[in-house]
């Protein structure tokens, strides 16, 4: 860092309550909303903790999304290569080209049309759970397979390939599998995407990849990249919202009771869970392309800037009514769980459809659902980019 100011500390990562953001954020928001810190991976930069500032930074294209990885990497002096098709790391106008090709596939209307297919997938998983009998690990039996199967539907993965696809995406995300298995799963998925693209070139289909192929704007490399980005960005995120959302509702029985009494609250409840849990727990990384002034601090070109979504979503300036409480009837306000600015989650309407279908049906199907272990014993994803539970043993 080429600045004379001392570092003010490290990014808060320790949670006192597994469902609350780290407490230090409160003090940061009050006293050092633009703080110079060291991040968990050792990188140094600026931590933005207030709601309004998070939005300001994410809407400002002087902050580039072209950073090396979601977790790692400090200031970019020389833009790192972006994997073909991974527009999450691209800036406009390159980003715009990819995003515009896809937004038509993710409209509110398109996602509503997917509801029956999603409900069917959910119902099959619930049948399988009922068949296996209580207790089960909700993560493996329910939360992970749903988004994986939905993405198969969206990308047009043939039924015969879905089991292999699902096994590979589970292994790709596994912590316990050997590095070789994880690497092998990545490679298998990459090849799978390439096979899919080739098949769709030969025989046009009506799914996202099929239509992208027909649009004729992207190379095979880019098409396979878009496919793997959708899987990567849409699988673990949605899975953790389903599993952590379940735990959160079980731990807040009054809120669950309110939902049971008035199912019309589910839409607001999903927004509240997204806000309250903000699973992208460390926030979003950007790199300043030029010097930028923020609250009297000069953020130098090349600096890493992290917007703490989880802190902004608990900011009393924005959510004046007890932001640290889960309130499924809270008036819906713009939360930051899907980010902000041009990269705001393209899959958010799909995520909403999946979460609503999954959580509603789960609590309807198993009215006596409960944690099978004490909440303190649930292994939390403390040091993972995407927060959630590693395993959630539930009984009914």
């Amino acid at each position: 860092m080429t600045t004379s100011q001392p570092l003010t500390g490290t990014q808060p990562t320790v949670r006192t309550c597994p469902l609350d953001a780290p407490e230090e954020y409160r003090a940061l928001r009050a006293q050092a909303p633009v703080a110079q810190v060291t991040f968990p991976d050792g990188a140094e930069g600026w931590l933005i903790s207030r709601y309004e500032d998070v939005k300001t930074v994410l809407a400002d294209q002087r902050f580039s999304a072209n950073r090396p990885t979601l977790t790692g990497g400090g200031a970019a002096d020389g833009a790192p290569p972006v994997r073909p098709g991974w527009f999450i790391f691209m800036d406009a106008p390159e980003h715009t080209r990819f995003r515009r090709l896809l937004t038509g596939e993710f409209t509110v209307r398109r996602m509503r049309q997917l509801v029956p297919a999603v409900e069917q997938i959910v119902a099959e998983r619930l049948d399988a759970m009922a068949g296996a009998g209580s207790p089960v690990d909700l993560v493996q039996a329910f939360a992970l397979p749903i988004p994986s199967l939905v993405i198969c539907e969206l990308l047009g993965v043939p039924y015969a390939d879905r089991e292999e696809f699902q096994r590979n995406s589970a292994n790709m995300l596994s912590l316990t599998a050997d590095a070789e298995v994880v690497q092998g799963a990545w490679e298998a998925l990459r090849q799978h995407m390439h096979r899919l693209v080739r098949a769709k070139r030969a025989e046009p289909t009506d799914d996202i990849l099929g239509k992208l192929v027909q649009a004729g704007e992207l190379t095979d490399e880019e098409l396979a990249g878009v496919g793997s980005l959708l899987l990567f960005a849409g699988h673990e995120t949605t899975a953790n919202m389903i599993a952590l959302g379940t735990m959160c509702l079980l731990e807040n029985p009054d809120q669950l009771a309110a939902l049971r009494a008035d199912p019309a609250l589910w839409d607001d409840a999903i927004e509240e869970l997204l806000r309250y849990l903000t699973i992208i727990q460390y926030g979003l990384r950007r790199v300043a392309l030029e010097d930028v002034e923020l609250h009297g601090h000069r953020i130098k070109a090349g600096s890493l800037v992290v917007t703490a979504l989880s802190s902004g979503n608990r900011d009393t300036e924005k959510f004046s009514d007890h932001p640290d409480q889960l309130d499924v009837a809270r008036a819906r306000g713009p939360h930051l769980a899907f980010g902000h600015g041009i990269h705001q989650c393209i899959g958010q309407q799909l995520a909403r459809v999946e979460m609503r279908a999954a959580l509603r049906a789960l609590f309807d199907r198993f009215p006596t659902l409960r944690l099978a272990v004490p909440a303190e014993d649930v292994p939390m994803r403390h040091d993972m980019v995407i927060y959630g539970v590693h395993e959630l043993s539930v009984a009914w």
Partner: protein
Amino acid sequence: MKVIIDEDKCVGAGQCVLAAPDVFDQRDEDGIVVLLDALPPDALRSQVENAAALCPALAIEVVK
């Protein structure tokens, strides 16, 4: 109340459609915002203002 949209800024996030379905829609081809009602009745004011606040791309402007 008058509503102005900027199609070039829109990133097709669909927030406006959820917030004010009588005023905003999305084009089927590319998900870009469509203004259904440029002069919505005052009864929809809070919905429309919410849509403008939710829009991640600052593509919606509410005049008066």
